[in-house]
């Protein structure tokens, strides 16, 4: 175990700091976090910043140069150093949207050379923003039962159906999407993974009102949407396998320890700055104890992430340790939000543009949004199924007898 930087890494850390000193004035002020909460059109400064980071190898480091990346070898510690230094400087990191975190790795693994050439560079530079078309109204946890159909017509597919929970669909240029191309095959085997522009005729995006009051998600309707068959990624009918590699990326993304740390620091500020009957709430032993409990959990998650990164660096496969991250991380964030709300008391139920509101209403918004994340990306129940089955080797739910 060695958590100190070696010489090469000390040099690299200095390089990152130098970059930040010289360029942080160009960084968009908005925190990555609030950006994630409310997808909106990427401001020009965000795209410029992203391009700058790509050019300096401070994001998408390991993407081959041929596809617009930095072409660096995998070096977990360098990634960590980047994250830590950006965090310390309070500067927005490289974007972690669905195109970058999900489409790019999938395409690198399954795409044709032409697809890679065409899509990866603009995606990592955020010149193309993607949305994900997986869930359907009747295919949530049971994703493989999706029914959006793609029927052949010459060299094209004609797509009809509906997607839901499509985050960012209203601002995305492209969608990566699961459609049923082989209606007669068993349900996991008739699905294809396909990409197409969101301005293709026949696509309608409707914002989905959620409990937070801001439409973070959309419904997307397809009516006779014509897409060339060449846009399938991986083999036709094998979309389930292709998508599952992507889903794994999503599950990692959702339980991010940095996000928990950020929340924890905000809770600490509340405890220090808010008062009740004139006394700072940090003096309240119950809240303090809850805070320390959650602090220990955040610390455990951060260190666990470092252990997982190390194991991945040693070429160990993703195991139980990775599977638990989403379940624990989402729950931890929800608990942190709940503590924040409780510390604030009646202030904690204020919303919108109410006077006295703290942190722009983020506490309530996050309390709901993080509950949404416990549900989304595979509900907590599905996560527990996966952990018990794939992680612990327990049997799958037995098949149900036909009545």
């Amino acid at each position, binding site marked *: 175990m060695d958590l100190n930087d070696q010489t090469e890494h000390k040099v690299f850390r200095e390089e990152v700091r130098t970059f930040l000193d010289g360029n942080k004035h160009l960084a968009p002020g908005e925190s990555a976090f609030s950006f994630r909460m409310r997808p909106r059109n990427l401001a020009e400064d965000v795209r410029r910043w992203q391009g700058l980071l790509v050019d300096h190898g401070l994001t998408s480091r390991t993407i081959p140069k041929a596809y617009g990346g930095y072409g660096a070898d995998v070096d977990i510690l360098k990634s960590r150093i980047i994250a830590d230094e950006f965090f310390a400087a309070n500067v927005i990191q490289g974007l972690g949207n669905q195109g970058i975190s999900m489409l790019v790795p999938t395409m690198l693994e399954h795409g044709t050379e032409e697809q890679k050439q065409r899509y990866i560079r603009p995606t990592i530079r955020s010149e193309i923003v993607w949305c994900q078309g997986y869930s359907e109204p009747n295919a949530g946890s049971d994703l493989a039962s999706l029914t959006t159909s793609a029927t052949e017509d010459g060299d094209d597919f004609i797509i009809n159906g509906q997607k839901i929970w499509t985050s960012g669909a209203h601002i995305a240029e492209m969608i990566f999407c699961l459609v049923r191309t082989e209606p007669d095959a068993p349900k996991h085997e008739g699905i294809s993974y396909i990409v197409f522009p969101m301005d293709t005729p026949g696509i309608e995006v409707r914002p989905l009102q959620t*409990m937070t009051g801001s439409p973070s998600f959309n419904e997307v309707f397809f009516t006779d949407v014509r897409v060339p068959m060449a846009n399938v990624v991986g083999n036709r009918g094998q979309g389930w396998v292709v998508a599952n590699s992507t889903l794994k990326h999503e599950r990692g993304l959702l339980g991010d320890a940095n996000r928990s740390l950020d929340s924890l620091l905000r809770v600490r500020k509340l405890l220090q700055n808010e008062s009740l009957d004139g006394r700072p709430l940090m003096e309240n032993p119950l809240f303090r104890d809850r805070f320390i409990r959650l602090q220990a959990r955040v610390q455990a998650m951060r260190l666990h992430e470092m252990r997982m990164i190390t194991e991945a660096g040693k070429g160990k496969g993703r195991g139980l340790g990775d599977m638990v991250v989403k379940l624990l991380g989402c729950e931890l964030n929800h608990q942190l939000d709940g503590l924040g709300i409780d510390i604030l008391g*009646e202030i904690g139920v204020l919303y919108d543009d109410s006077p006295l509101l703290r942190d722009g209403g983020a506490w309530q918004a996050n309390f709901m949004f993080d509950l949404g994340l416990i549900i989304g990306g595979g509900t907590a129940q599905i996560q*527990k199924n996966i952990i018990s089955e794939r992680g612990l080797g327990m049997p799958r739910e037995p098949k149900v007898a036909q009545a």
Partner: protein
Amino acid sequence: MDFGLSEEQELIRDSFQGTLSRISDLDTVRQTAEAGASMDKSIWGELCALGMAGLLIGEDYGGAGLNLLEAAVVAEELGRRVTPVPFVASAVMAPLAIGLGGDEEQRREWLPGMADGSLRLGVAVSEAAAGAREDASVTAASKGNDNVLNGRALFVLDGAGADAYVVADGTGGLHLVRAGESGLDTVDLKTIDRTRAITELRFDNTPAEPLRQGDGVLQTIIDAGRVTLAADSLGAGEVMLQQAVDYAAERKQFGRPIASFQAVKHMCAEMASELQPCRALVWYGAYTMEHDPGGLSLAAAFAKSHVDEVGRFVARTATEVHGGMGFTDLMGLHYWFKRLGVNRAYLGSPERVRAEAARLQGFAA
């Protein structure tokens, strides 16, 4: 011993249940909420016709002369329907404040209008009930022949559009302040719960009329408010459970209703288990006001703090059972979620109320 509702109480419940199912459906709630109105006047009118506003007001003053248990029964129904009308302050705390704390003249002046619903009162006791935030505090002073208030009261329940306010000063005295009085500023505070409104009051030598028999009344109205909020939460929680059970029966995944998955069943079983004993706790809290007033504060503390905790659990778990649908606005589940959220914060958080329960029993200084 009869630990249950009387026939009359069941009748009240049924009549509110029937009326509310007709007039306080989700569409109406949604319209009111989305319009930012936090009260539906036609619902208010119909419920006042049923006697809601005068439940706790003596018959001599045009009310029904009933007790807190009846109010709790009604509160539960309002919670079930997330009905957008003022109740806890306007129909429970304020009538009790004036009924117990006012002299005959004050009762004559205020109670009849309150009983028929033509007068609505907000109640400003948050600093006493939940602790003072920011620099909130209210002081009373004499100015010439007048009694005036100065300072700031936050989180005034049912404050928006009220005709007057019952205001606690820092010493526990209660005062009546008319809307539009000189030196009175009101600031609307929006919360996650769009079905009920709170405000902030700012006093600058604002004329106020002291309740002349106010000793000990402040704690009583806080206790009554706590029981009422607990009843409201109980109703909201019961509905969330029922909605989860219903949704699970309909929603299919993996070729079967999700209600047949053990994980979903157990989530529902846990909600039901937690909710069931809450009713007795709420009823008993309400019952003590009339029959064991010395035990009211403790019983109210147990009811409020316990139902608050159960409420948070149920709000979260029922939403989870609904999956993504619970997170959307489509089914409106979040109206109940948010109602439970604010009930928890009002009139003392569970932590604070438990600390009071410890003090009441001599376990803490």
